[in-house]
């Protein structure tokens, strides 16, 4: 076990060294992190997205309705986020009004995937940062000094929950498939609504599964997120980054889409602001894309790969909001929505952290925007989704229409804003001669894991890495802990 080998000269506690972690494992996709460590602390970071497929160019010239299928293949963990954003963009371009029951079944499908995605992330992607797994591949080998600190009994309970959570997330997928047809990659979300009218029986089946998942979330996931956090209190103290965040909002609670369960908003330099989509621009100076395409709004966005461009280091573009790098994801949404914390969360914050907190912002921005804060936010958001799903189950009507037909427009454009479990997501479509002329996607990982922009401003995760303690460069466990907390 050689540990992570330094690129430059080996460094002691006071020296300076650059180390690369490639691949960053237990994430969706291909990511490399290169950090410079000085005096045991990260002083600079570069994140490289190492894979490019070109969805935006592949979509050009196709039937616009194909988009909601093709874009799901961007991410197998959150395909329903992409189908949701795509269908919203298509609804907008086709000028079709989704029936109430269509909105509700879309919410039930996407909501179940939220539960699935957050549970998968905590237990099957992130937990091994804190938990010692079984003594067998793929749980070993790992760093020689993995900095695992859970007491034996809590660790054993966490391993049991790792296995139980596999089952629970599978049940969540069954909930998605109930109206989505199958999962991953649902058939049921189309422009104009959903393809399957819920029957009474299907709703009973959905509700029965939801009950099981709810129990797991309330009794296991939320408490364990705090309990693990209590064993790693220092992880509430770094990884803050800019503390600037954005949420496009998700889950319409009425047909006018004026009320969203996860709120829309922007928080920059300590101030709340209304969200203005015109202020989004994507920069590519440090990305492997043609420099002529930098600084564009997504509605004018161009995708011209330049894999050999000098000075660039990522296939991820750098989106900015009003020029600022902003973080998105559960902590951003919980900060902006600021819901009441779960009862168990309030109790454990008092018992384990001596903190009286009623609402999410009572955690304070330093603790909320931290490695553990992001895990807590994700657990609390999972809890916050439960009440919404319960409400939709009451509002949805068995046997009532979920779909409205519409013609493909000869010429039109549309935009769909939502929130993937891992962050803000917008799809934009421009239709000419009934075909896709331009399709642009700004996804969660673009918001969080982007490289420097043209002005040299670090991406949100890059910035969050600065200040991370790496006392031993052969075992740089904290680096990936910071990255994974974002759920890239």
């Amino acid at each position, binding site marked *: 076990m050689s540990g992570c080998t330094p690129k430059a000269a080996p460094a002691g506690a006071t020296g300076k060294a650059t180390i690369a972690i490639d691949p*960053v494992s237990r994430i*969706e996709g291909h990511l490399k992190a290169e950090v410079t460590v000085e005096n045991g602390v990260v002083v600079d970071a570069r994140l490289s997205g190492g894979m490019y497929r070109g969805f935006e160019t592949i979509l050009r010239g196709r039937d616009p309705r194909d988009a909601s299928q093709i874009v799901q293949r961007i991410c197998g*963990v959150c395909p329903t986020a992409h189908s949701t954003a795509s269908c919203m963009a298509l609804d907008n371009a086709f000028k079709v009004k989704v029936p109430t029951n269509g909105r509700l079944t879309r919410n039930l499908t996407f909501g179940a995937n939220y539960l699935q995605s957050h549970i998968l992330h905590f237990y099957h992607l992130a937990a091994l940062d804190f938990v010692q*797994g079984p003594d067998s591949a*793929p749980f070993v080998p790992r760093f020689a000094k993995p900095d695992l600190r859970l007491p034996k009994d809590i660790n054993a309970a966490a391993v049991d929950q790792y296995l139980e959570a596999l089952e629970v997330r599978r049940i969540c997928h069954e909930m998605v*498939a109930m109206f989505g047809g*199958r999962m991953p*990659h649902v058939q049921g979300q189309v422009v104009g609504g959903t393809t399957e*009218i819920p029957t009474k029986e299907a709703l009973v089946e959905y509700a029965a599964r939801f009950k099981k998942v709810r129990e797991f979330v309330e009794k296991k996931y939320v408490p364990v997120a705090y309990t693990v956090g209590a064993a790693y209190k220092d992880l509430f103290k770094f990884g803050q980054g800019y503390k600037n965040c954005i949420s496009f909002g998700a889950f319409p609670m009425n047909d006018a889409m004026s009320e969203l369960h996860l709120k829309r908003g922007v928080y920059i330099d300590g101030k709340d602001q209304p969200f203005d989509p015109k202020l989004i621009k994507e920069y590519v100076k440090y990305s*492997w894309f043609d420099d002529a395409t930098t600084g564009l709004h997504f509605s004018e966005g161009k995708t011209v790969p330049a894999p050999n461009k000098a000075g660039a280091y990522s296939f991820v573009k750098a989106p900015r909001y009003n020029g600022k790098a902003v973080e998105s994801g559960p902590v951003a949404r919980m900060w902006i929505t600021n819901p009441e914390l779960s009862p168990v969360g309030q109790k454990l914050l008092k018992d384990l952290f001596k903190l009286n907190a009623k609402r999410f912002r009572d955690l304070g921005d330093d603790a909320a925007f931290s490695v553990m804060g992001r895990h807590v936010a994700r657990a609390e958001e999972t809890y916050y989704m439960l009440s919404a799903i319960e409400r939709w189950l009451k509002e949805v009507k068995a046997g009532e229409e979920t779909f409205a037909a519409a013609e493909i427009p000869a010429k039109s454009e549309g935009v769909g804003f939502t929130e993937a479990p891992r962050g803000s997501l917008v799809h934009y479509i421009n239709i000419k001669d009934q075909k896709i002329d331009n399709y642009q996607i700004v996804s969660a990982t673009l918001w969080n894991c982007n490289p420097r922009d043209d002005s040299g401003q670090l991406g949100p995760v890059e910035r969050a890495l600065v200040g991370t303690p790496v006392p031993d460069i052969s075992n740089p466990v904290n680096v990936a802990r910071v990255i994974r907390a974002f759920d890239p």
Partner: protein
Amino acid sequence: MSLNRRDFVKLCTGTVAGFGISQMFHPAVCEAISGSLNGERPPVLWLQGQGCTGCSVSLLNSVHPTIADVLLKVISLEFHPTVMAWEGEPAMEHMMKIAEQYKGKYFVVVEGAVPTEADGKYCIIGEAHHKEISMVDAMKSVAANAAAVLAVGTCAAYGGIPAAQGNETGAKSVSAFFKENGIATPVVNIPGCPPHPDWIVGTVVVALNAIKAKGLAAGLADVVKLLDADGRPTPFYGRNVHENCPYLEAYDAGKMCETFTKKDGCRYDLGCKGPMSMCDSFERKWNGGVNWCISNAVCIGCVEPDFPDGKSPFYSA
């Protein structure tokens, strides 16, 4: 309990209603296969090219056996970017060490297509010995030296969406890449976007079982005999969706659905690609049997070599 090839075919084709992979996965079978390679669980290295991790996520939905049993009792998953505890160079070097130590005797799963343009730069899977390793590099070394490669998902099997019209990355399937580079390692395709977990687990089980019975070369040869012209195991991909569709009667009677939500007829007029698609979803169904594509909407032909271009537009109504 022992399981021969005929049993497998019978079970996979579901001659008994609701009889899927689950019932064949008796604990004794686990034990039998666990000894298929020198008494050890066979090492599996899982490479991700241009994919979306959807195949891995689908595999997690395996019901019988559960994915926990697959990981802890059937295979030894020595490298999987989404699952493994380790990361970075040491994890990559561990993978290469396993490939060296078990040369010709380990299995590789490929998820995602292989981008060949720009010297492979469109997909870097990690670093080893201070050098970036592209998916192309890994295919020529780690995949080429495996006993066999399982090309899981339509991207790995046929190119899929990364290889669709408009792509600029030179995305290739595993078998096309091997052919162009003169690599003769056997490839089994498990297409689907994503594949059903039973298709993946079932194929692994039958392969390990055959190897256990006959040794590596003869066992693999048996598996290859099960494949159709597109490299898919016929037990799962041997039947046409339309010919076996529960709505075939409606089609024969000329009764067509006019819109997605009016479910009283055949979906052909909505754009259903069932007539051009080969898989057993009509019977196996998805996600614990709660639903499947055509019952919910239409088939988009995701198991076929010409997906997505040959199946586009997906909807015609």
